[in-house]
């Protein structure tokens, strides 16, 4: 591409590439925590994942000059343990971390950045509802309606699901197809926690947690860590062919009416998704039809239909037909969350989705590999904070 062509896409277009991915043994640690053991703290999981990613990249600690830590680990202690005194640093969720890292690399603040995440949420008995609900200090909506018994992100998604289903013609059995498809993919993933089959009938037989959502609509809660090594595109080319480039990236936040939940219930994040999608696809120079695999942040099953409509894969209001006819499983033309995602692989708050995206493009996914996978789209819309990333091959 010409210099002018590249500039018209923005300076983040293919500025950075991921050259290393790593994670902890989710399955083994889940078995240990189930027995009441405490294998590691969040920092420990992050450190182990970092070593794994570093080895994958073929680098040493001394090659790292930037560090971003996830929201669940303290920055200073993390850097101290990893032995990294970086020229640039930050703390962010998975999508935000990729975006910030691309910006730091494009502006020359750092060349090779480690992104590390660790969470001991299962062994630490972190609660997502009730009096001590996690994240309530950051999101007023998670705590403000407690005097009426309203609590937990699951209940918020249940409120959204009820209205979304009523407006869009999706039934509970229709939504079940999301959990069922992701479980089927997870069965081909040795790193996935849930590898027993799930049918629509079995889903429908499950009791409600917060009606209309059932347990299979909720993500797992488990311990673990993930790390990514991201570097300049130039250096990535020297490293070799395992590099996966960030072709496009965009963000759009919906804060209006977030605390009352009115924003979610009237627009279902659509405006934010539409803007983030446009920014990332324009930057990448590809569109939804070029995408081979979609990775959707799925703390709840409902995220999948919302994202398919919001990011332009499915006409609004057509989701019931899309899920039935097109489908999202490995045999569909554009599979979603090929690892099983948060519902069936591991709840690493978007970080494991990056790992799966990279591995699909590398062709390293074994039995669940999508043949000829070139472009993977990652999207997140947690609480209306929409992040969209288009990953693709190098030269």
């Amino acid at each position, binding site marked *: 591409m010409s210099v002018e062509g590249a500039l018209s896409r923005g300076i983040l277009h293919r500025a950075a590439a991921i050259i290393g991915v790593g994670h902890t043994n989710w399955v083994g640690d889940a078995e240990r925590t189930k027995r009441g053991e405490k294998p590691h703290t969040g920092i420990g999981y992050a450190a182990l994942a970092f070593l794994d990613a570093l080895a994958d990249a073929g680098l040493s600690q001394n090659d790292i000059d930037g560090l971003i830590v996830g929201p669940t680990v303290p920055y200073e202690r993390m850097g101290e343990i990893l032995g990294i005194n970086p020229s640039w640093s930050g703390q962010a969720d998975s999508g935000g971390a990729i975006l910030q890292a691309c910006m730091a690399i494009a502006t020359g603040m750092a060349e090779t950045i480690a992104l590390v995440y660790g969470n001991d949420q299962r062994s630490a008995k972190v609660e997502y509802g*009730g*009096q001590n609900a996690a994240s309530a200090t950051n999101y007023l909506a998670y705590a403000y309606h407690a005097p009426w018994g309203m*609590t937990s992100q699951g209940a918020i998604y249940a409120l959204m699901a009820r209205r979304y289903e009523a407006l869009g013609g999706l039934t509970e059995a229709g939504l079940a197809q999301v959990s069922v498809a992701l479980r089927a993919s997870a069965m081909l993933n040795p790193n996935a926690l849930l590898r027993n089959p799930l049918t629509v009938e079995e889903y429908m037989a499950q009791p409600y947690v917060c*009606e209309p959502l059932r347990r299979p609509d909720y993500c797992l809660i488990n311990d673990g860590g993930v790390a990514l090594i991201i570097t300049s595109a130039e250096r990535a080319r020297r490293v070799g062919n395992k590099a996966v480039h960030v072709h496009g990236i965009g963000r759009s936040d919906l804060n209006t009416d977030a605390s009352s939940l009115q924003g979610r219930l009237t627009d279902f994040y659509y405006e934010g998704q539409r803007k983030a999608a446009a920014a990332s696809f324009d930057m990448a120079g590809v569109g939804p039809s070029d995408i081979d695999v979609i990775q959707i942040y799925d703390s709840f099953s409902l995220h999948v239909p919302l994202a398919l409509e919001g990011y332009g894969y499915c006409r609004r209001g057509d989701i019931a037909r899309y899920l039935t006819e097109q489908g999202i499983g490995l045999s569909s033309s554009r599979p979603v969350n090929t690892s099983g995602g948060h519902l069936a692989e591991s709840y690493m708050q978007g970080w494991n989705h990056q790992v799966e995206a990279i591995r699909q493009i590398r062709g390293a996914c074994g039995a669940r590999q999508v043949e000829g996978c070139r472009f993977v789209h990652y999207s997140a819309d947690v609480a209306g904070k929409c992040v969209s990333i288009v990953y693709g091959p190098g030269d």
Partner: protein
Amino acid sequence: MGQSRAIRTIYDDPMWETLASGVLRLQQCCNCRSFRYPPGPTCHRCASPEHKWKPVSGRGQILSWVVFHRTYFDDYPAPYNVVAVKLEEGPMIVTNLTGKKPMGSWIGRSVELCFERHSNHGLVPRVKLAGDDHRNVED
């Protein structure tokens, strides 16, 4: 487990103080006239800090509803419902439907505010179906 807790900053206090007398008042911007909820220091539409506390009509429509089948608070044993109600004035509140329950979908049903006493929070605003002669639970 534990009890549900209200978040009461200095911006919320005036609302809770009048709830105790069975009136829901929300802030109305003096500049652009829009109502806001939860209460806050400035108007999210026009940024004006000038506001007055105005009682709302109490009329609204249900946007969505759920039924909790799991208990998270001692003072809210499952099953119980939570409804999202769009008030005539614009803001949406999250509350509970008391009294008669509609057959079929609750979405779009007209409701009106009523007040019920809660063990920790005093009088809290809830809603009942418009025209339901359900008696407010008052001590």
